């Protein structure tokens, strides 16, 4: 597991706040897999 220095808050609360759509999609894929992994098959 890497322990890296945090990169700081640059975009949140700023003018021209934005989010990369690819990151939103990647997050959704990981969350979906994680939910299935944690709750497991019946």
């Amino acid at each position: 597991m890497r322990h890296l220095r945090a990169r700081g808050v640059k975009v949140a609360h700023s003018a021209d706040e934005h989010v990369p759509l690819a990151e939103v999609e990647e997050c959704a894929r990981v969350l979906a897999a994680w939910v299935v992994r944690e709750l497991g098959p019946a």
Partner: protein
Amino acid sequence: MTIDLSDAARAAAAAVDPAAIRDDLRAMVRIPSVTGREEAIAADLARRLAGIGMATETLLADSAAIRLDPAWPGEETDRASLPVVIGFLGREGGRRIVLSGHLDVVPPGDPASWTADPWGGEIRDGRLYGRGACDMKGGVAAILGAVRALVASSATAGLDGELVVALVPGEEDGGQGTLAAIRAGATGDLAIITEPSSLDIVVAHAGAITFRLTVPGRAAHASQRREGVSALDSLFTILRGLEADETARNAAETDPLMVALGLPYPTIVGIVHGGEWASTVLDRVVVEGRYGVRLGQSPADAAEDLRRAIDAINASDAFLGEHPATVEIVGGQFGSGRVPSDHPLPIGLADAAEAITGRRPALLGEPYGADMRLFINEGGTPCVIYGPGE
């Protein structure tokens, strides 16, 4: 190392619909939801969750009752209601996991400083622009995208437990929306908040309290300034003392994730009020600022640290010794939170991320307050932050 991930988990990940995520996010950004005014977006999200197939409840939490809660984190804006949207998917009675995000955003500031409409949801070069796009409607859209994928891939039928989605107001001014959700039972075995973390995993965060300092001086006519004592001189004495206090508090930290931040617990003054006449020695300055809450501390512990520091500064100065500066704690109060780096939550999430994306997320500490500490400290639910955006 090869990560073991079931076919069902991989199928759920593959079922994510990018077009639906983009549409959800753009629609959310187009609903202004500055802290204290979250009713419209809460109603929209309740409709979206129900449309996906979640059993959905909207709790109109009692603002007066929540203010009496011993863990009430304060507030910095007026509000008429505290709408909390909760969705349920899967089977009651087994394990329970929570995905959570806040629906409020900070004001957009000067529109002239934007190159896009803050409430427009414009897409440029693969990025969606707007107030809250990053903090944190992008994370909420990711939750919606995950739930859609679970339903579309038929993974829901195989869940041996329950997924709870908690979408809350009032994070930006303290976190009372999450506290209300927790008190309503939106807790579980594990929780993820999809605040922006650039898809790394935040396992530790500092907190912060807001303080108001009233610093005395002694008025005199400018022509006789030596007869007076400028409150500005007293303020400089206090600022130097607070700087030394900040150095000592940060030097005492031993958690490697917080040490790596360099200055995990900053003290700043962000507002200064004083003076009524240009040629009168200032007899009073009132300042407001932010004081860090260390890992393991409650906001009350940090307030005690601050009071002790101010008392010591007062005692060290001839004028302040007789005319002490006074401190009040005001506004939002953010505690700190920590999940062990080897806890099954960050390990399992990192495993899932590595299996899906090929990149293992870093585990991080952050210097700012977040609702994560409320799930941990008040909800008894281990919680980390993992979300899109910086």
